[in-house]
C-alpha cells in the first residue's frame, strides 16, 4: 500500500537533481507535488515510476525495490501521465486510450473483453466518450489532455502519477480533472500529481509535498505544508487565505514576497540560507 523513497538521490548530466528525498506515500490519497520551476518534481515522478536510475537510495513499492520488479508488472501497478501531451500519429482517441491496456495484454493478443471495458470506463470518467472515434491529433489541447488522462486511467493501476495534468485545461476542466483525480484516490488509487497551481493543490490535495532545489522542504496537509513561511521561502510569494461560501478554506498566491526563488534567499543550486526553515 506504500510507494516510498529512501535517501533518494538522482544526478543527471553531472548535476544533482534530487538529494536525500525520504518520502512515504500511501494509497487512497491525492498527493500534490509542488515547488518552483527546476525543483525536481518531474524527476521525482519519474523516479517513482522507476524510469530514472538513482545514484543513491532507492524506491520501494510495498517494501520491494521497484527496480527489481519486472517491467510489465511495474507498468500494471504504476501508471504515469506525462506532461507535453505528445501524440505522434493521427490515431483515434480510442486507440490512444487502448494503449493504457498494453501492460495487461499478452504479446500480440487482441484486447480482451476486460480491456474493452476498462477502456470504455476510462473514457467515460475523463468525459471523452463522445470523442472516441475522433482523431486524437485533431483535438484541442484540453481534449487531448483528457484523452491522455483517460489513457493513464485505463491502466487501472494501484498508482497514478501525473505530471501537470491540469496545466493545459480551462478552469471548468481543471476542476473536473482535479475532482476526477480525487475521486480516483477515494477508490483506493494512490494519486500523485505535480501541480503548479497552488490554489488547486491546496483545495483538492490531501497531502502536499514541497520540493525546492532537489530537496524536500515540506510534507503534510495543505494548511501545514503551505504555510506563509514556506510560500515565502520556496516560492517567493505571499498568499491570501479565506473561506469560500461552501465553508472550505482557500489559498490564493497574491504577491511577490521578495525572497525565495530569484528573491535572494536561495542560490541557483537551490541551497537556501537557513533561518526561516518552514519544515519545523
Amino acid at each position: 500500500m506504500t510507494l516510498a523513497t529512501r535517501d533518494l538521490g538522482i544526478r543527471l548530466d553531472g548535476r544533482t537533481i534530487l538529494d536525500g528525498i525520504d518520502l512515504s506515500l500511501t494509497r487512497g490519497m491525492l498527493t500534490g507535488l509542488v515547488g518552483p520551476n527546476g525543483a525536481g518534481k518531474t524527476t521525482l515522478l519519474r523516479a517513482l515510476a522507476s524510469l530514472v536510475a538513482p545514484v543513491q537510495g532507492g524506491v520501494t513499492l510495498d517494501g520491494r525495490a521497484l527496480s527489481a520488479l519486472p517491467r510489465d508488472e511495474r507498468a500494471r501497478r504504476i501508471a504515469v501521465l506525462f506532461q507535453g501531451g505528445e501524440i505522434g500519429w493521427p490515431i483515434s482517441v480510442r486507440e490512444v486510450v487502448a494503449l493504457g491496456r498494453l501492460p495487461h495484454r499478452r504479446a500480440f493478443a487482441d484486447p480482451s473483453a476486460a480491456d474493452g471495458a476498462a477502456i470504455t470506463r476510462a473514457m467515460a470518467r475523463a468525459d471523452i466518450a463522445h470523442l472516441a472515434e475522433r482523431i486524437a491529433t485533431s483535438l484541442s489541447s484540453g481534449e487531448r489532455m483528457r484523452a491522455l488522462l483517460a489513457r493513464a486511467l485505463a491502466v487501472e493501476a494501484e498508482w497514478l502519477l501525473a505530471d501537470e495534468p491540469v496545466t493545459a485545461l480551462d478552469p471548468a476542466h481543471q476542476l473536473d480533472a482535479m475532482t476526477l483525480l480525487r475521486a480516483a484516490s477515494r477508490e483506493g488509487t494512490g494519486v500523485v500529481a505535480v501541480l503548479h497551481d497552488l490554489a488547486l493543490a491546496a483545495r483538492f490535495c490531501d497531502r502536499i509535498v514541497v520540493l525546492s532545489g532537489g530537496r524536500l522542504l515540506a510534507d503534510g496537509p495543505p494548511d501545514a505544508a503551505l504555510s506563509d513561511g514556506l510560500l515565502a521561502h520556496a516560492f517567493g510569494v505571499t498568499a491570501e487565505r479565506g473561506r469560500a461560501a461552501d465553508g472550505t478554506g482557500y489559498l490564493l498566491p497574491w504577491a511577490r514576497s521578495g525572497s525565495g526563488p530569484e528573491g535572494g534567499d536561495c542560490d541557483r543550486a537551490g541551497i537556501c540560507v537557513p533561518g526561516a526553515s518552514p519544515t519545523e
Partner: protein
Amino acid sequence: MIGSETTPPSRRAVPHRRRLVMLLLALAVLALTLASVAIGYAPFDVPAALADLVAGRTTLPALVLWELRIPRALLGGLVGFSLGLTGAAMQGYLRNPLADPGILGISSAAALGAVLVFYSGLAASMSLALPLGGVAGAALAAALLGALAARGSGTLGLILAGIALSSLAGALTALALNLSPNPYAALEIVFWLMGSLADRSPDHVLLCLPLMAIGWILMLSTAPALDALTLSEDSAASLGIGLVSVRLRLVTGAALAVGSGVAVSGAIGFVGLVVPHLVRPLVGARPGASLWPSGLAGAILVLAADIGVRLLATRPELKLGVVTALIGAPFLIVLLLRTRGRAA
C-alpha cells in the same frame, strides 16, 4: 480487437478492414510474383518449362525458369517486403513520416561492402562474393549502431550515428570509384549501385532469405512498442516497454533485412519511404498496424516496378532503383508540400 461479445461494432470494423486489406495485398503479391515469373524478354512457355522442371528434365526452359525467372520474382518480393517493413518500422520508431530504411546508414554501408568487393576483383571469381560483401558491410554498420543502442544512446544519438555512417560510407564509395583501375569497372559499380534484380540466381535467394526472415521477425516483434511510442519515449517506458531492447531489435532487424536486400539487389530507394504513406489511409495510422501491410505493399511496388522495367523496351534495361526513384521523388515532394500545408 476481435472476438469479444461486449465489443461495440465500431471497434470491430477497423480490424476487420485491416484484415481484408492484408488479404488483398497478399493476393496482389502472389499475383505479381506469378506475373513476374511469366513476363520476360524472350517468348517463354511457362507451363512447359514448369513441367520440365517438375519432371527433372534439364531443358533450357526449365533452366531459365529455375535459374533466372523464379529467383528474380522471389527477390522482388523479398526485397520489397524488407524495404516496406523497415520503412514503416523506422517511421514508427522515430515518429517521423520522412524516415526511410536507409536512415541508419545501413544501406550505404551494405553498398560500400559490395563496392569494395567489386573493387578488389573478387566479384569476378565468385558469384556470391558481391552479396557477401554487402552483408558484411551491413553487419559492421549494425554492430556499431547496436553497440550505441546497447550503451543507452537515445534516438537522437542513433540518427546522428546513422547520418555519420551514411556520409562515411558514401565518401568511401566515391573513393573506390575515384581510384577504380579502369573506367569499365567504375561503370559496372555505378550500374550496380542503381539497383537491379536482373540475372540473380537461386543462391542469392538462399543467401538473403534466412537473414531477411530473422530481420522481419525482429522488426515485427516491436509492433506494440511502436504503438506505445506514439505517446513519447517516457510514456512507452512507463507502459513497460524496454526501450533499449526495442532499439536493438530495430537496428539488428533493419540491418539484416535491408543489408541483405542491398547486398543482392543494390540500392532501391524510396520504396521504404513511400509505402507506409500509401498504406496508412487503408489500415490507420497506428504504427504497429502498418508493419505487415507496409511489407506487403513494398513487395507489390518492387515486383510491379521490376515487371515494368522488363515491359519497357529500353536498351540497356532501366535499373530498378532508377524507376523507384522516378516514382518516389515526386511523391516525396507532394508529401513535403502536404506536411508543410498542415503545419502552416
